């Protein structure tokens, strides 16, 4: 089987021609670095993505604190994780790196705060 992948690991966005059988990658061309091969392999076995969203903040200078995942999660679990994120509320102040949800849905990734928000004075 042959397929073209657009690698999303870095902004180069290499277009990778891959030959594969099932989950076995036979050859890749077009990638500028070895991460391309890893990416293609992962895409064939279990595509993974990170997401970013926001969580409501109480008593903060801003109404929302941005959050992201510390590690990619299976692509088909994105909306499950979104549901978890939507349930959260934070109390100001928030700090970058604050863990909002530890090991979300047991997927091995944390949801962390990515914004410094002071408490309203």
């Amino acid at each position, binding site marked *: 089987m042959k397929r073209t992948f*657009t*690698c*999303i690991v*870095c*902004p180069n*966005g290499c*277009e990778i021609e891959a030959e594969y059988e099932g989950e076995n990658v036979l050859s890749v061309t*077009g990638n500028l670095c070895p991460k391309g091969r890893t990416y293609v392999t992962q895409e064939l076995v279990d595509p993974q*993505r*990170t*997401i*970013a*969203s*926001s969580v*409501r903040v109480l008593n903060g200078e*801003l*109404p*929302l604190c*941005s*959050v*992201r995942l510390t590690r990619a999660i299976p*692509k088909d679990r*994105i*909306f499950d994780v*979104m549901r978890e994120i939507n349930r959260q509320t934070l109390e100001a102040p928030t700090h*970058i790196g604050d863990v909002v949800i530890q090991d979300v849905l047991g997927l091995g990734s944390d949801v962390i705060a*990515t*914004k*410094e928000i002071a408490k309203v004075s």
Partner: protein
Amino acid sequence: MTEKQAVIIGGGPAGLAAALRLREKGVKDILILEREKYLGGILRQCIHDGFGLTRFGESLSGPEYAQRFIDRIQAEGVEYITECTVLDVSPDKVVTAASKTRGLLQVRAQAVLLTMGCRERTRGALATPGTRPAGVYTAGVAQSYINLQNIMVGKEVVILGSGDIGMIMARRLTLEGAHVQAVYEVQPYPSGLPRNIEQCLNDYGIPLYLSHTVVEIKGRERLTSVVVAQCDERFRPIPGTEQEVPCDTLILSVGLIPENELSLAAGVELDPRTRGAYVDEHCQTGVPGVFAAGNVLHVHDLVDFVSLEAEALADSAAEYILSGSLPACPLEVVAGQDVGHVIPQRCSGTRDFTLYLRVRRPLNQVSVVVRQAGREVLRKKMRKALPAEMILLAVKAAKLTQDANLEVTVE
């Protein structure tokens, strides 16, 4: 009137990086003027990750990337005023600004650093026909509402333009519960990065229609539908291909324009291709002591390169401030075949510099070539070159003479 060695207009990524580098170079008397309540510029609302891969070797969100600079600004005690909008910059480098707490401020600067960023092209600039209902937003405005203000702009969304912010917003809107029907792009190729097509559109099953545009906006109060049509190679809609798409929201991601009104007030001449200043390799504009970097100079794809460019600016600005002058740049750098624009437009021929350029159209298996009086000084082979991706070339002074202009071509 207060005096400063350097006044930096805009506390976004370019301004912050420049301030820190100036400081390192021994310029201590700096003032950053930022019109928002917080430092960080547009990064504050870019909450997706992917920032900092080049600079920090990790994938950060916009606010995190900005905070790394803000923390250092605060630790170093760099002076800044937020909620302070610059009203005027005079050619003799007097900066006038308005602030709630400080009143009307006038500062005379040895060097003025223009780091104001860019703004979005609007529906008005496109002159899209139709009505003027609620529900039509530029991507950045929608991003601000959704990511900063906790306000949802709509439910059934169409996106016009495949700029990166538009695609990022397609994903954000989808994650937050809206239904994004499609992205339409008038050009025959995408204007954003390939990875964003993959991870923002393909991942969520959002189709991208190239050579398509919105030809009419409908709805008197709130948007009810848009009419889209296929376009020919000159971007004209092809009659008979019109299709009405019901929606309540139209997001425009149709280009960014460097924000140079203050530059013009200072007497800076702009390059019609970049709509930013003409600069030399020191990022100095035509007005001595006035420098520009980042999106105000030319629109970048990646913030990492904005930081880099601003630091290069600061190196030169520091030299200017401390020694009173910079080497002359008599050589022109000319954008030749298939090159959309180049930065800088002038160089000295005596120093190394980074050359930034964009190609005019997508090309495969090409070389970017820099020549001086017909003599090749640099050649970079590229498997593919896209207008969406800025190209950086390190030009070595050792390869240059001081008597002829440089021409950059893609062949």
